[in-house]
C-alpha cells in the first residue's frame, strides 16, 4: 500500500513538473486578471507585446547564439551601436532614414564581427570573448559621447520615427518588425538546413565536424546575424525616444538570457528554440505589465520580477531534469 501511495505521489509530481511552467503562466495570468480587469483588455495585451518588442528581437539573437552552444554578453552593445550609428548618420551626415537604418545595421554587425574574430579566430570561449567585447564597446560609447551623455535628434526624419511610432492597420510597426523577425528566425533556425546545422553544432561540435559541417563558417554567420538583429532593436529604441542613449542595451541582456533558457526548458528535448524564447519573453512581459497594473512601487516591482525570474528558471530546469530522467 505504501508503494501505491508513493507511486501516486510521484505521478502527481511528474504532472506538475511536466506542465509546471504552463500552469504557472496560467496562474499568473489569472491572478493579474483578477486583480485588475484592465489586464485582459485587448489594448493592454497589445501593450504587453509592444513593450516586449525590443526584448523579443534581442532574445532572437540570443537564441541563435545559445543554439550554437555559446552565449553572447554583448547583445546590448550591438543594440547601442545600431542606435548610435543610425542617429549619427542622420544628425551629422544628414542621411535619409533608410540609409541611416542600413548604417545602423552595419554598425551593429561590427560587434558580431569582433565576437566572431575572437571566438573563431582566437578560440576564446564565447563568454569571455563577448565580455571583452562588452567592455570595449561600452568604453567606445563613453569615449564617443564624452562620458555617456545621450545624443538626441528631435528633428528625426518621419520615416525613421515610424520604425517605432508608426502603425499598420492599427498594429504598431515595432510589433510588426518583431513578428517578421520571429518568423524569419523560426524558418531559419527551426526549419532550414542551415538551422539544423546550427543546432547540431551547438549540441555536439565534434560530431558535426565529422559529419562534414563547416562549423567555423556557421559560427561567424551566427554572431554577425545575431548582432544585426540586435541592431534592429537599437533602431527601434532610437526611433522611440528620438535619441541615442549610450549603454542602454545592457538592460536587455539578463532578460534575453532568461527568456532563452525558459524557452529551452519548454522544448520537449530541451533545445533553445524560437517559439519557446517568444513564450519566455511574453512571460516576462506579462509579469512586468501585471506588476505595473498592481500599482507597485518601481523598486518593489523590480525585486518581485527578479524573484519570479529565479523561480521560473528553477522550475524550467526542474522540468527539463524530469524529462531527461523519464527518457533514460
Amino acid at each position, binding site marked *: 500500500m505504501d508503494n501505491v501511495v508513493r507511486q501516486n505521489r510521484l505521478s502527481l509530481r511528474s504532472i506538475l513538473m511536466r506542465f509546471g511552467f504552463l500552469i504557472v503562466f496560467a496562474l499568473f495570468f489569472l491572478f493579474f486578471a483578477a486583480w485588475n480587469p484592465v489586464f485582459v483588455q485587448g489594448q493592454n495585451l497589445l501593450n504587453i507585446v509592444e513593450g516586449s518588442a525590443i526584448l523579443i528581437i534581442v532574445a532572437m539573437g540570443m537564441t541563435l547564439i545559445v543554439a550554437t552552444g555559446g552565449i553572447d554578453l554583448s547583445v546590448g552593445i550591438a543594440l547601442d551601436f545600431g542606435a548610435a550609428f543610425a542617429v549619427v548618420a542622420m544628425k551629422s551626415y544628414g542621411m535619409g532614414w533608410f540609409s541611416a537604418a542600413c548604417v545602423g545595421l552595419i554598425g551593429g554587425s561590427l560587434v558580431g564581427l569582433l565576437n566572431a574574430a575572437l571566438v573563431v579566430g*582566437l578560440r576564446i570561449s564565447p563568454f*569571455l570573448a563577448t565580455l571583452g567585447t562588452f567592455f570595449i564597446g561600452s568604453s567606445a560609447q563613453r569615449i564617443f559621447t*564624452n562620458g555617456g551623455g545621450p545624443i538626441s535628434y528631435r528633428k528625426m526624419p518621419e520615416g525613421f520615427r515610424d520604425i517605432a511610432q508608426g502603425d499598420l492597420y492599427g498594429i504598431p510597426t515595432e510589433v510588426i518588425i518583431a513578428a517578421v523577425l520571429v518568423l524569419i528566425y523560426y524558418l531559419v533556425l527551426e526549419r532550414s538546413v542551415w538551422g539544423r546545422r546550427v543546432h547540431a553544432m551547438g549540441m555536439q561540435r565534434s560530431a558535426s565536424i565529422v559529419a562534414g559541417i563547416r562549423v567555423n563558417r556557421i559560427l561567424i554567420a551566427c554572431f554577425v546575424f545575431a548582432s544585426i538583429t540586435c541592431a534592429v532593436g537599437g533602431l527601434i529604441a532610437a526611433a522611440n525616444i528620438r535619441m541615442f542613449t549610450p549603454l542602454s542595451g545592457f538592460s536587455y541582456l539578463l532578460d534575453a538570457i532568461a527568456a532563452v533558457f525558459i524557452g529551452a526548458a519548454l522544448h520537449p528535448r530541451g533545445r533553445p528554440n524560437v517559439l519557446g524564447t517568444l513564450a519566455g519573453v511574453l512571460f516576462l512581459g506579462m509579469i512586468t505589465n501585471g506588476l505595473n497594473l498592481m500599482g507597485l512601487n518601481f523598486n518593489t516591482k523590480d525585486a518581485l520580477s*527578479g524573484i519570479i525570474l529565479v523561480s521560473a528558471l528553477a522550475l524550467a530546469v526542474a522540468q527539463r531534469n524530469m524529462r531527461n530522467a523519464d527518457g533514460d
Partner: protein
Amino acid sequence: MQVSARHQKHRLATLVGFLPLIIFLALLLYVGLNAPNFMTVVNLKLVLAQSLPVVLSVIGLSAVVMAGGDDVVSGGIDLSTPATAVLCAGIVSVMTTAGQPLLIAAGASLIACMLVGVVNAVLITRLRMAPLLATLAMFVAVVGINNVITARKRLNLAAESIASLRQDFVFGIPLGILLVAVLALLAYHFLHRSKWGLNLQAAGGSRDAAEISGIRVDRLVAQTYLLAAFMGFVTGFFMLARANGYSPGAQDNLMLEMVLATFLGAAFSPRRIVTVWGAILGAVLVAAISIGLKTIGVNVFWTDLIKGALIVIVVALSAISERVQ
C-alpha cells in the same frame, strides 16, 4: 631532432604563458616612468586600498571556479557575489541609519547573505542548473531586493567603526589592508594547502577522478558557493568603507572586475589554472592599471576599453600557449 623541436615548442609555450604578466609589468613600468610619483609607498597603499573589495570577492569566486571547473559556461562561476556584497552594504547601512547597533545589523546581513549562498548551492547542486545561469538570475533578484531595502538612495556611513577599515593604521599599515591580507593568507592556506582545498581542486580538475577517489563533489561545490556568499558579506563592509557609505549601483562594476581579475589570474599561474593568489594578483594589477592610467592623464573613459582589450589578449595568449603545448 624531434626531441629538440618539442623542447623548443615547450619553451615557446612557456614564453607565451609569461606574456600576460610581462604586458602588465611593461604597462606599469611605462606609467611609472611617466608619472614618477606613481611608484611611491603612498600610491601603492592607495592602489591596494582601492582593490580591497575586488580582492575579497575574487577569493570566493576562485574557490567556486576551482571546485566547479574553469569552463565559464558549464563549470563553476558565481556572478552573484557582487550582489551579495551590495546586499550586505545595503542592510547594514539601512539598519545602522535607523539606529540599530552595528552588531545586530551585521548579524542580519550575514543571515541574508548566507541565504543567497544556500539558494545558489541548491539551484546548482540539487537542480543541476548551470552555475552561470543560476547566479546571474540570483544577481538580478538580489539586486532587486536590495533596491527595495535601500530605495536606491545614497546613505552616508552611520556606523563610524566601519570607517576605521579605511582610516586606522596598525604599525603604519592601514587596518583594512592588514585584515584583507590575513583573510587572503587564510584563504590561500585552506584552498591550496589543506586537504579540503586539494579535494576542491580535484573536483574541478576531473569530477570523475574525484568521485572515484571517494570525494563528495556536490558537497564541496555547495560549500564553495557558501564561501563565496560569505566573502560577499565581508566585501560589503569594505565597500561601505571605501565609498564612505552606501551608494547604489556599485555591483555591475564589481562583477566585471571580479571576473576579469580571476581569469586574468589563471594566466599568471604556471599550471594555467585559477588560483587564489593569481586572482588576488590580478585584482591588484587591474587596480594599479586603472589608477596608473589616471595618474598619467589617460581619459577615464578609455579604462574600460583597456580592460576589455586585456581580457581578450590575456585569454587569447593563454589559449595559444595551451595549443602550442
